[in-house]
């Protein structure tokens, strides 16, 4: 089934609607068909060159200023994205492995319903999550089925949670081989080990005996079991030795190496309490031991499958090392990191390195888009697509992962369309790219292009300014518009009269003043904070409650997580906390922060 995507598709509203609703059949995956879909996905990923993804979260930002805007450096953007990724939940994860050859785009779209159900009763993957009412309402309008999601969504554990859960789930763990003997033993240790050793010896002997003579009647054998404290582990005989500490467990494991030929020790852990007991399992032969270890491994694998859930898919993508295409790099990958890898690092550099170990190749479509068509807005996929129409770049889409033809009336198949569009947009962009720079051929070049950190915005109104040139201003006595505030400021101080500047509101409580010349911000900041220099109408404004702060305070607010609803409150809190501990934290990372900002004033 092929549909030719004509580059002449116009941008009018009617068409964009057609684009978002049920164009392609997307395989819907929930708990019931997850297992069977997994193999299919594996083949899809293996046979593709790229993987596109698109997430549906329960929220994006709680207050206007929490949204990443033009005044954010990569550091503050990261803090904002981190805050959102930690609070909101991914309900829908659309995934599309695709390959591109010439104008032909082969896609394998899947749409997964996720719900962080606590399958293991361990308070994981997430104790709770936030929802934005407006976001849920919007999802409802698009026809999202919340019942399917909550009843049948696939759960998961992050990599870190999985390793933590091993010791929490209470399943027996095969003891790691003892590498070196532990610290010198005390008399008490020796006594303890001696006692256990004789107990194990007796038990082992009885095991050997029972193997040789099978003629015992039931009563005798059960009596023997009772006397020796012998139990059965599956079909095998075993002995459970209770321990009070990890030290005791260690001692017993060391001692059991003496019986390594026919005894396998298992660690029995209980919920969050560490090792509770060691279970020695008797092996009838060498083959039996191999079989037993294999059985345990299989059991663990199956358990892992159940534990990891949807993360299997993430691991598949990660291990395939295929480039991952995302529409919104920062918000998508902070979410993915937080939910499927582990807690988000405290700064953006650690995040990048942590992420690249799992996903070495990430293509940020919005960056790519800016390279080619700087003015278009990536957040609206159909619009972005149509803005590329001036380039001739035909793309044929072929949906490859469906057995049956799409049944659009079902209503369900339509979820996850965005991910197909994302891959389509990528195909288009890379075609255009290729025709522009004929040298660019391989994926690596595309990578290099996408990972370029310098944002160049080709807008008339945009300029590069240092973040030092920004001054935050709040606490105005009454609400005025930005242009009124500008004219008020112009009269208030010399620096405004002589220097060029602009004013924009960041939210209803706080505005930012952008000085286009270096040094003016310091003049202004010091003027407000200096009793003697503070004169005229500016003094009047300060007396009425006006407060100002430099970019440092804003950065600090983001770093310390003062996410109040109004930016003014957050900045007030930051200033208070600065007053509280005078040893203003001058972390080395603070200094190395890039202060260059490319501000597109239209976007502010």
């Amino acid at each position: 089934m092929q549909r030719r995507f004509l580059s002449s598709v116009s941008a009018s509203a009617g068409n964009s609607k057609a684009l978002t609703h049920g164009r392609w059949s997307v395989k819907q995956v929930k708990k019931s068909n997850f297992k069977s879909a997994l193999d299919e996905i594996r083949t899809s990923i293996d046979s593709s060159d790229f993987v596109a993804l698109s997430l549906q979260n329960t929220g994006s930002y709680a207050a206007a200023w929490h949204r990443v805007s033009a005044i954010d450096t990569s550091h503050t953007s990261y803090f904002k994205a981190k805050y959102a990724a930690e609070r909101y939940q991914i309900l829908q994860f659309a995934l599309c492995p695709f390959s591109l050859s010439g104008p032909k785009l082969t896609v394998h779209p899947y749409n997964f319903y996720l719900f962080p159900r606590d399958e293991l009763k361990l308070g994981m993957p997430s104790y709770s999550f936030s929802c934005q009412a407006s976001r849920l309402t919007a999802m409802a309008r698009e026809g999202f089925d919340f019942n399917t999601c909550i009843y049948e969504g696939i759960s998961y554990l992050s990599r870190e949670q999985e390793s933590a859960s091993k010791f929490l789930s209470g399943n027996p763990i095969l003891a790691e081989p003892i590498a070196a003997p532990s610290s010198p033993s005390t008399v008490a240790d020796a006594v303890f080990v001696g006692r256990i050793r004789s107990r194990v010896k007796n038990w082992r002997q009885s095991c050997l005996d029972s193997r040789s003579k099978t003629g015992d009647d039931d009563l005798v054998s059960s009596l023997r079991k009772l006397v020796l404290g012998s139990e059965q582990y599956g079909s095998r005989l075993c002995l459970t030795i209770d321990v009070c500490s990890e030290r005791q467990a260690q001692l017993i494991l060391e001692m059991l190496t003496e019986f390594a030929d026919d005894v396998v020790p298992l660690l029995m852990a209980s919920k969050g309490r560490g090792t509770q007991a060691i279970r020695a399992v008797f092996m009838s032969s060498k083959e039996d031991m191999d079989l037993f270890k294999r059985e345990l491994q299989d059991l663990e694998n199956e358990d892992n499958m159940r534990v990891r859930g949807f993360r299997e898919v993430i691991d598949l993508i990660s291990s395939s090392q295929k480039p991952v295409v995302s529409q919104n790099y920062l918000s998508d990958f902070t979410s993915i990191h937080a939910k499927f890898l582990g807690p988000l690092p405290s700064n953006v550099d650690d995040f990048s390195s942590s992420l690249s170990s799992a996903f070495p190749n990430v293509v940020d479509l919005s960056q790519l888009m800016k390279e080619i068509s700087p003015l278009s807005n990536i957040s609206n996929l159909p619009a972005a697509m149509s803005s590329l129409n001036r380039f001739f770049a035909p793309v044929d889409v072929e949906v490859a992962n469906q057995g049956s033809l799409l049944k659009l009336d079902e209503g369900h198949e339509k979820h996850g369309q965005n991910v197909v569009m994302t891959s389509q947009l990528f195909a288009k962009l890379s075609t255009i790219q290729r025709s522009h720079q004929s040298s660019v051929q391989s994926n690596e070049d595309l990578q290099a292009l996408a990972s370029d950190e310098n944002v160049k915005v080709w807008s008339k109104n945009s300029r590069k300014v240092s973040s030092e040139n920004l001054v935050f201003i709040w606490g105005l006595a009454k609400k005025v518009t930005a242009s009124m505030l500008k004219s008020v400021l112009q009269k208030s101080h010399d620096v405004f009269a002589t220097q060029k500047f602009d004013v924009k509101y960041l939210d209803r409580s706080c505005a930012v003043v952008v000085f286009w010349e270096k040094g003016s911000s310091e003049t202004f900041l010091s003027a407000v904070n200096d009793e003697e220099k503070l004169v005229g109408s500016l003094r009047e404004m300060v007396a009425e409650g006006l407060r100002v702060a430099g970019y440092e305070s804003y950065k600090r607010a983001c770093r310390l997580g003062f996410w109040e609803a109004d930016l003014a409150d957050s900045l007030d809190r930051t200033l208070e906390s600065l007053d509280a501990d005078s040893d203003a934290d001058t972390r080395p990372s603070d200094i190395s922060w890039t202060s260059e900002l490319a501000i597109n004033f239209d976007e502010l």
Partner: protein
Amino acid sequence: MRRHKRWPLRPLASALVRSHFSSSAAETVTVSTATAAATGAFPLKHVTRSNFETTLDDLRSHVKAADFVAIDLEMTGVTSAPWRDSLEFDRYDVRYLKVKDSAEKFAVVQFGVCPFRWDSSTQSFVSHPHNFFIFPRQELTFDPPAHEFLCQTTSMDFLAKYQFDFNACIHEGISYLSRRQEEEASKRLETLYDEEGVDSVVETEDLKLVRLADLLFSERMKKKLNAWRSELLHGGNASSVESPGISNGSTQSAETVFYHMRPALSLKGFTSHQLKVIKLVLDKHFGDLVYIHTSDKSSCSQDFVVYTDSESDKENLMKEAKDERKRVAETKIQSAIGFRQVIDLLSSEKKLIVGHNCFLDIAHVYSKFVGPLPSTPEKFVASINNHFPFIVDTKILLNVNPMLHQRMKKSSTSLSSAFSSLCPQFESSSRRSDSILQQRVEIDVEVDNVRCSNWNAGAKHEAGYDAFMTGCIFAQACSHLGFDFKHHSQSENFAQNEKLDKYINRLYLSWARGDIIDLGTGHSNAENWRVSKFKYENIVLIWNFPQKLKAREIKECLCKAFGSTSVTSVYHLDNTAVFVLFKNSELVSNFLKLKQQLESDDGPVTIIHPLSKILEGGTTGAADYEAYKEICSSNISKILFSDQAETVGVRSRTRPDPIGPTSPETERIEKMVAVTNSASDLIDAFLANRVEVEAARTS
């Protein structure tokens, strides 16, 4: 089995989704009740936004006539972090802070309201169970506060287990505004319209026609408007004149209509940018044509170009338009109040509200429909009385009254088991053959004017049915207490009855601990309610100690340092924190001082000191009980207590003079919150699911 008996809104709701909510209110009502009757499910009135207005009128009369109203709520969660659960050492004010946190963070998704009325003609109660789906949808578009709520994963899973219909709730739930939110919205509305004049001037200033497309468009519009205007002025009958050529074939159209008795062009299909350009053209070239933007109740916006014959007429028109917009916005606020109308009704009728273990429910009602919860339990008690003067908690009734407690035959006082042990006649099939029939209260169910006394059991944990069960328990309990419904006149007031006097307005603040809060200010029956005497000033909180340390080991360390009898007990808050109950408050400050000393000292003493085991790692925090309160009052909720303590910023510290237990302030406060010590309570506390706390007691 219950699955199949479920009410049919779910398929209906998805049908609604598919048809883009075009289905009318009337259809919904008829379908839902008709199917309910057909399948033999418990007759329950399900209310969503499509049938809310019509139901509200009926409910009004039912509530007015009712003797009492039972309520029940379903929320998206209960605790925002594991340590926010009710714990052994939670003082009543800390417990209140935890309830406050829960009510502020989670959303209510279902609200059951069930008015009960004694019908002397049939000698039975008539109940009207209503099940409202509510959702904090943002109905107001102007400068909306971002509304967020928390979902506890286990609670969502619990709701799913009982077949809760999330689609019905999110797609079709009734929205609401609290009183405070309504006031704020009105205030914002006022400032919005005061500024409007200013704003529009600036806007047009900002827009400059630079792009060629804009210039061409504005020229064209100028011509068209000019043609329309001259036709209007010179072509005689204005209304019959069709606008020439504007609407040929394109999506854009302009037709001549009347706007407030003036000839006008109704503009359709223009983009907002185009409309701005049109506005600019009007301001520049046409003094007598005015651009008007309106939006009606269904938030459908309309744009007009209106002809005015004079400057004063123009001013009048502007004023009229502004007033109309304001009126529309006001009606929007009125309709956004939504479900709060039900709460206002309960409040204004001053009916006896019956709930089961309902302190959290009442806190939710306050925070969602009245305003932000007060910071202290005292202020809450002082305020709730104005809104709900009479509340009775059936859980209190069953546990505190010895006779009822005995009748429960030691079974759990959870809602469903209380219902089956007190009202078995409704669940067993042999209803009429009960030997002690005369003691049973007859209860009929009436939904949509269909009354029946024979019905199947409903689905547990559906707010409407839970409210019904609560009401039944109350009615039955009253009968056991000696209420004689039959021989009293209808005007008998439950709330004023002396038999209930001991129980009214007393709620479990913490069921696990048996703390009871008295919401009725002024009267505290000291002889019945004993004051709790925990020595909170003897408590130290320790967190971030080495993970492997258990309560027992911590106790050993402390005993080595302060003497073997110094520590009464050590409780885990969670894996990262413990409460230590010292013998006296001196030890508390001694401990905190010693900790500080050891931390600032690098000498060899620190290593061999018994406390070093606890302080190992250098991040161990400790503080007194007041710090715990502070930590609980924060609106942050980290999963681990140690993270919470660090984030809130409570570092180790000693308080120069800890608040003594004898200060008059605390004495007065403690009188309001009481703990019962009757044997029945102990049994019940044992039966109840207590929070698991690892304890290492002295013995």
